[in-house]
């Protein structure tokens, strides 16, 4: 299947596999899903295993699944997901993204981590190192909680602290950048102001002291109480916390602005525009909002939008795939030509 540049609408009724199609593209970038366990979904279409491949901007990514994932980039096998992550840059926008605002802090950290990993190749390593050091340190804290020894605790604390800085550095500069772009896009879409604030999960300038001071607390808990795994981002719309005060429509436009902001950051840092994948996200926007969003999307290099009705105006012309169910086959596609609308 080939998608042309510009906007492509993927039109079809619910449950004909529209989302699966863009999810596959998302999978080729992140090897995970933006909703459920995609690996299982995909396996249903092949018999127990599958091969999925895609090319974007001259990079070919191929995933072979035979019980475990094997990833190839331009035919060379990758040692791990870490190495292959984000080889094809993708930004997705789905209804579930509202959870970035509404959900718990874990959702917001996950959002940070995935976004940063798409342009900072070392970031997943930093996270891995941090989690490993934290696990080791937690094991000793738990030992001590059970009355055992804290043995060589400072060794692991040093590893932990060493691993904290690059994460905090990457996250705070990402939020700063994201804030600048999001503010501008959100203003264009809604006329309102938005604020983004990175709230550190510890006093990172004095982290040694913070750990020292709270040693007893941490032993009582049996795990690490401070650090990037407690980081937060705060969203404010017109001086009020978005989570509590903003309407659902505004939240939707806020995550849209965030995702479009990420798209701009990726374009700037990778010198390559990401593919935008939009799953049913545009329903429920009023005419003015959807017009300004459409204007934004028209400037993007490649956008795939799933929708049940194709009467949304995206500009002079767009590409269209219609997906139907035929004889129970999950998806049959037809009509990939450019259609002039007006």
């Amino acid at each position, binding site marked *: 299947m080939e998608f042309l540049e510009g906007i492509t609408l993927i039109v079809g009724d619910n449950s004909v596999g529209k989302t699966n199609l863009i999810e596959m593209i998302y999978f080729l970038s992140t090897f995970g899903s933006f909703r459920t366990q995609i690996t299982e979904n995909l396996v249903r279409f092949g018999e127990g295993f599958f091969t999925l491949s895609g090319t974007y901007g001259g990079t070919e990514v191929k995933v072979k699944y035979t019980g475990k994932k094997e990833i190839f980039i331009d035919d060379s096998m990758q040692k791990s997901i870490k190495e292959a992550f984000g080889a094809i840059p993708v930004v997705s926008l789905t209804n579930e993204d509202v959870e970035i605002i509404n959900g718990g802090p874990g959702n917001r950290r996950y959002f940070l981590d995935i976004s940063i990993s798409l342009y900072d190749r070392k970031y997943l390593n930093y996270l891995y190192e941090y989690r490993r050091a934290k696990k080791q340190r937690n094991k000793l804290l738990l030992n001590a909680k059970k009355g055992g020894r804290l043995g*060589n605790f400072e060794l692991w604390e040093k590893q932990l602290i060493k691993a904290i800085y690059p994460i905090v550095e990457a996250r705070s500069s990402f939020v700063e950048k994201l804030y600048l772009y999001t503010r501008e896009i959100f203003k264009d879409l809604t006329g309102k102001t938005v604020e983004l604030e990175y709230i550190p999960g510890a006093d990172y300038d004095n982290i040694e002291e913070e750990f020292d001071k709270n040693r007893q607390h941490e032993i009582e808990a049996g795990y690490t109480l401070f650090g990037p795994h407690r980081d937060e981002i705060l969203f404010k719309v017109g001086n009020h916390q978005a989570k509590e005060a903003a309407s659902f429509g505004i939240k939707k436009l806020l995550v849209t602005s965030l995702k479009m902001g990420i798209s701009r950051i990726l374009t700037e840092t990778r010198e390559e525009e990401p593919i935008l994948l939009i799953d049913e996200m545009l329903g429920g926007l009023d005419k003015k909002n959807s017009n300004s969003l459409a204007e934004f999307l028209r400037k993007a290099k490649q956008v795939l939008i799933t929708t049940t009705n194709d009467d949304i105006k995206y500009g002079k012309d767009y590409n269209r795939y219609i997906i139907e169910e035929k004889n129970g086959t999950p998806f049959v596609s037809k009509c990939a030509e450019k259609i002039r609308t007006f």
Partner: protein
Amino acid sequence: MKPPGVFLRFIQSLQSLPGIGKKSAERIAFHILTKPATGEKILHSLEKVLSEIKFCSKCGNITIENLCHICSSHGRDTSIICVVEKPMDVFAIERSNSFKGLYHVLGGLLSPLDNTYPEDINIDSLIERVRTEGISEVIIATNPTTEGEATALYIEENLKDTGVKITRIARGIPFGTDIDFADDLTLTRALEDRQEFKE
């Protein structure tokens, strides 16, 4: 039809080997069944390896004598010790031909998660060697992982008062890559570009 239990247990034991999944284990097991001579040969060399190979009493490398071929060689620089995690790392560095000193095999890395503490790996014997063998430099060549770094730091702290020069291999080896997987050139560079230990 279910294969005999003894055969299934054989497949299971093959699967416990590193890098061997279910499919490979089955393929090997059936191959050995159909080619008994291959099986006999493996059985014989396995028995020999298990009964004859032991660890060098000085450095912990594998050997059939009391001392390994490196410790008993006259052509080595006996003033430098390269500290590695496992015998396979000695193998990799020797293959790269970039090091002419002696080795010390720790036999593991510090890792509370695996219940491995300083007394569980060969660190005391390293300190003893540095004190008594006239060593001028210790190169710490553990993998650049969280555990490898913590172990390097522990060794450095415990060798500090001996006054020996302590260096760490350069991080030319990509993060997460085991020394035994690194290619010869990368290993040679990592050793050449080693730096005085700093936290």
